[in-house]
């Protein structure tokens, strides 16, 4: 059988290049998202793994008050311990200029060899030399942010005052790919916090810990026996005041990046699936229309002897072209975008060992999926084409194009009074004319609205939550932490500082909460019973004083959810001084997870240190914050000082990046909504070419036709907007809720202006994509078009 009819495929596609182009674009969008995100997240995952492997990232770490180095040697002898490293970890202050200090975490590394666990990767300069002392390796991202280079000298606060450290290089660390101070540090920024590696022996000397360590990092032989090893190690270190055991997956940087990857992977499948379902519908509609338009041609093909199989193959070839073009463009664009995203991601997190590896699988999957989507969508129209009988198909009949007329229900309802103008009636009936096509169009536009709500609400919600956090929860202006517990004399001294209106005492200590088999690490904060500088949102009518006064513990929502406990439940709390039981006296709706609050009196009952080791301050004015911060750093024993406005500034800076992402989401959704409306309107207008030409022949002016088509495009978008916004809100609320973790709790929030903006974006996209149809209608040859049969 001659297969020359298949050559017509390319010609037909070229004749309808814009329509097929729009179909290919929708497929390309879906594939591009899938490929780019898959490539980027796989690269990121491999980059992490490579970094973790190269640096012997600890399987778990045990924090102790102070343990002799000999204890580390004993740990090394335990079963399943592959490698162990004991070190000193100290938080202190580091002045970056005359008035500004950052919180510096000094971490000890062996100078005479590389660390067997939690090593670093030298990015610039060199590693320590044997017996080197006052030298430092800051994290590269901190050095870059502040402009430090090898040879520069840093000053850090020690028990003996400021001590100089000379930079010999910059490094990256598996523990600080995300440079978070703790799980509670949700807005890490080198403006406030830095990590510095110092020869361990010198660090011991600086902080009076000669021969002692306060952290033991362990690498195990067998992952499956890790829990037994943890039990053995903590048991061995118990006499030295075990404060916290952190498993690799709970380590702040690892846990956060893993969460990031996990949500990214889900998104990389969910979003393209939705887009490709839309693409399938669009192809089905376009192919059905093509088969109808080529009815007489199909009759001719069948008449001259082409079999059903040839006709099916012929129309499936259209799908193959769309699938291959869309899939290839999408895969190529996605791959490029994926590399770009990998670079951006690696840059943002300063991942040292970037794995830009060629990934064949996303391309293979893309090719298969795009072809499958196109073929499945075109199967029914191709089958319908093959079933046409030659004689009836070739006979031109006006009945072919004659749609069944009816007065839609909605018109009956709204037309009970005065009948709407004819053009409006026409617009409404045109939408009801092909209900499935219209439903698809409305559904697809609604999906674009849903994606916009989901995409933009995350920014709005974060903004809202941050506002809430900074205004209602954190009511302090400046917070400071001390190395060791302080007495009332220090409090009086702080209260006497210029610019301080009021100081509240705090006691911070790491703790582990246990309920049955569930456990989580938190930062326990002992606060004043009548605290003014922290706002609890307890609900249920209980006041902060009542909740704290009962001797119980207030948990943040994230912790309560994780442990599955509520008010009145009991839990065990393990601190440096032992294990006690507490009753949950309140659950506070706060963004930050991983926190538990008790009163200072309860803290004393738990047997924790006397006095306080941190303060919240209210300053007299925002302009006093910097002055207060500088004054606090001059106090002996100060560990770190945070200014709330600085944290807020960091947040705003991060939001600026989010705004770029929001722009990308808006652009993506506009292109998708535009391509969908364009496709439907093109099919609608082509199908009604004769009608439109007749209207114009009768004397209806171009504005009337423009009005009719624009009304149709507008109606599609208006019908889609409300359900889109409503479903988007439900989906976003659910998604945002699922993003909540032990680290933070999220709530859905979206501004009215954002809803309005989405509505405008959808309407604009729909109207703009109607322009080609309007242009076509205005340019048609009326004499010919009035004779068109389908």
């Amino acid at each position, binding site marked *: 059988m001659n297969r020359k009819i298949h050559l017509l495929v390319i010609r037909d596609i070229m004749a309808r290049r814009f329509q097929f182009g729009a179909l290919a674009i929708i497929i390309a969008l879906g594939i591009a998202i899938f490929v780019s995100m898959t490539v980027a997240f796989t690269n990121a995952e491999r980059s992490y793994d490579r970094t973790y492997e190269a640096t012997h990232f600890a399987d778990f770490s045990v924090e102790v008050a102070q343990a002799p180095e000999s204890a580390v040697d004993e740990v090394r002898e335990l079963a399943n311990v592959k490698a162990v490293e004991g070190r000193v970890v100290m938080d202190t202050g580091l002045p970056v200029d005359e008035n500004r200090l950052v919180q510096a975490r000094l971490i000890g590394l062996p100078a005479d060899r590389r660390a067997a666990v939690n090593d670093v990767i030298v990015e610039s300069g060199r590693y320590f030399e044997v017996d080197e002392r006052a030298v430092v390796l800051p994290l590269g991202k901190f050095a870059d942010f502040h402009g430090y280079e090898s040879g520069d000298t840093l000053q850090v606060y020690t028990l003996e005052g400021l001590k100089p450290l000379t930079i010999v290089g910059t490094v990256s660390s598996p523990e600080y790919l995300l440079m978070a101070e703790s799980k509670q540090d949700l807005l890490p920024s080198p403006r406030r916090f830095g990590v510095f590696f110092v020869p361990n022996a010198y660090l011991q000397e600086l902080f009076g810990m000669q021969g002692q360590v306060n952290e033991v990092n362990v690498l195990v032989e067998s992952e499956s026996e890790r829990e037994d090893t943890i039990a053995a190690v903590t048991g061995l270190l118990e006499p030295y005041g075990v404060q916290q055991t952190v498993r690799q997956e709970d380590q702040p940087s690892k846990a956060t990046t893993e969460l990031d990857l996990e949500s990214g992977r889900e998104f990389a499948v969910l979003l393209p699936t939705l887009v490709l379902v839309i693409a399938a519908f669009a192809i089905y509609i376009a192919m059905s229309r093509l088969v109808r338009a080529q009815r007489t041609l199909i009759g001719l093909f069948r008449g001259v002897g082409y079999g059903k199989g040839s006709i099916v193959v012929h129309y499936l070839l259209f799908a193959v072209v769309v699938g291959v073009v869309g899939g290839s463009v999408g895969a190529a664009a996605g791959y490029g975008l994926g590399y770009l995203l990998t670079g951006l991601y690696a840059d943002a997190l300063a991942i040292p060992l970037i794995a830009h590896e060629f990934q064949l699988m996303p391309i293979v999957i893309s090719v298969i999926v795009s072809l499958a989507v196109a073929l499945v969508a075109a199967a029914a129209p191709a089958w319908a084409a093959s079933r046409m009988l030659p004689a009836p198909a070739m006979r031109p009949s*006006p009945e072919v*194009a*004659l*749609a*069944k*007329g*009816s007065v839609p229900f909605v018109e009956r309802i709204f037309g009970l009074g005065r009948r709407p103008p*004819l053009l409006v*009636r*026409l617009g409404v*009936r*045109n939408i009801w*004319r092909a209900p499935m096509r219209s439903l698809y169009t409305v559904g697809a536009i609604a999906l674009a609205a849903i994606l916009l709500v989901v995409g933009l609400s995350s920014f709005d919600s974060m903004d809202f939550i941050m506002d809430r956090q900074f205004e209602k929860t954190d009511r302090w202006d400046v917070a400071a932490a001390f190395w060791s517990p302080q007495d009332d004399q220090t409090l009086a001294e702080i209260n006497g500082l210029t610019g301080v209106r009021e100081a509240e005492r705090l006691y911070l200590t790491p703790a582990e909460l246990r309920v049955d088999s569930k456990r989580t690490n938190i930062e326990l904060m002992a606060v004043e019973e009548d605290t003014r500088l922290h706002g609890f949102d307890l609900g249920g009518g209980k006041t902060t004083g009542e909740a704290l006064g009962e001797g119980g513990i207030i948990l943040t929502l994230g912790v309560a959810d994780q442990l599955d406990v509520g008010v009145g439940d009991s839990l065990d709390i393990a601190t440096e001084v032992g294990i006690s039981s507490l009753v949950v006296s309140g659950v506070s709706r706060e963004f930050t997870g991983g926190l538990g609050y008790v009163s200072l009196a309860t803290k004393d009952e738990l047997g924790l240190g006397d006095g306080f080791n941190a303060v919240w301050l209210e300053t007299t004015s925002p302009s006093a914050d910097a002055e207060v911060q500088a004054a606090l750093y001059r106090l002996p024993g100060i560990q770190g000082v945070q200014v709330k406005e600085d944290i807020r500034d960091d947040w705003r800076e991060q939001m600026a990046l989010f705004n770029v992402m929001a722009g990308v989401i808006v652009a993506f959704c506009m292109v998708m909504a535009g391509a969908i409306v364009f496709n439907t309107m093109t099919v609608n207008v082509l199908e009604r070419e*004769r*009608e439109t030409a*007749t*209207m*114009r*022949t*009768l*004397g*209806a*002016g*171009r504005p009337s036709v423009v009005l009719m088509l624009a009304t149709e495009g507008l109606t599609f978008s208006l019908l889609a907007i409300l359900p889109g916004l409503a479903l988007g809100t439900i989906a976003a609320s659910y998604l945002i809720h699922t993003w909540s973790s032990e680290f933070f709790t999220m709530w859905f929030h979206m501004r009215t202006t954002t809803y309005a903006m989405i509505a405008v974006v959808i309407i604009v996209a729909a109207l703009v994509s109607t322009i080609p149809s309007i242009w076509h209608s205005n340019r048609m040859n*009326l*004499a010919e078009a*009035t*004779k068109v*049969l389908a």
Partner: protein
Amino acid sequence: MSDETRTAGEKGRSEAAGPLLLEMRGVSKIYETGQVQVRALDGVSLALQGGELVVALGPSGSGKTTLLNLVGGLDRPTAGTIRYGDTDIASLSDGDLGRFRRDHIGFVFQFFNLIPTLTARENVEFAAELVSHDSRQMEERVEELLRLVGLEERADHFPSQLSGGEQQRVAIARAMAKDPNILLCDEPTGNLDFRTGQQILGLLQKLTGEQGKTCVLVTHNTAIAGVGTRIVRLRDGRVQSDERSANPLPASEVEW
């Protein structure tokens, strides 16, 4: 303009018919398809007068549809003038051509070209709305036309619920809704059975005879030429003959 065409044009006039409505002088239309030029009309001169039922006859490719398109302002001539009153419609802009069609021309198509989502009444209303701003007057006009074509009982039916003949009657009512001076019918019986075709021809005779409308009916069916008051034969883009009939056949006597 050649003497031959002037003569042909002048020959077309008759004192017995109404006033001169439209006059084509030396009209040519050349279509360029790639490198090939197709001369669809070649120096045609023709005058249309009120109350005429002009049957334009000719085989396929003779230029009859092109003639209809030019008279109806759907296309512009390559050469020559087409005067309607004082206006040369060949020189009008697209917008003005649209207004010309709206105000003066009614179209009846072979495939009826009704808007399928509008009922019979609404199809007629659509055209009436284009020229009337008085809704009461418009409604009366629509009812009157539906009565004229015998479809007052079927007015609320959609085209898909009407037979071919009924659809064409709606199309005629729609064409008349604007009260045009000229009615252009392109093979109006081409898609109808014989009996229904007779009814449509009778209706067109009624409109020209009783209402004084000028109707140009284009067909390749020589059998129906007899219903016209004037028969214009076209061949190869030229007017081969232009004859008047003092006694046109009643539509009921036409057979094909």
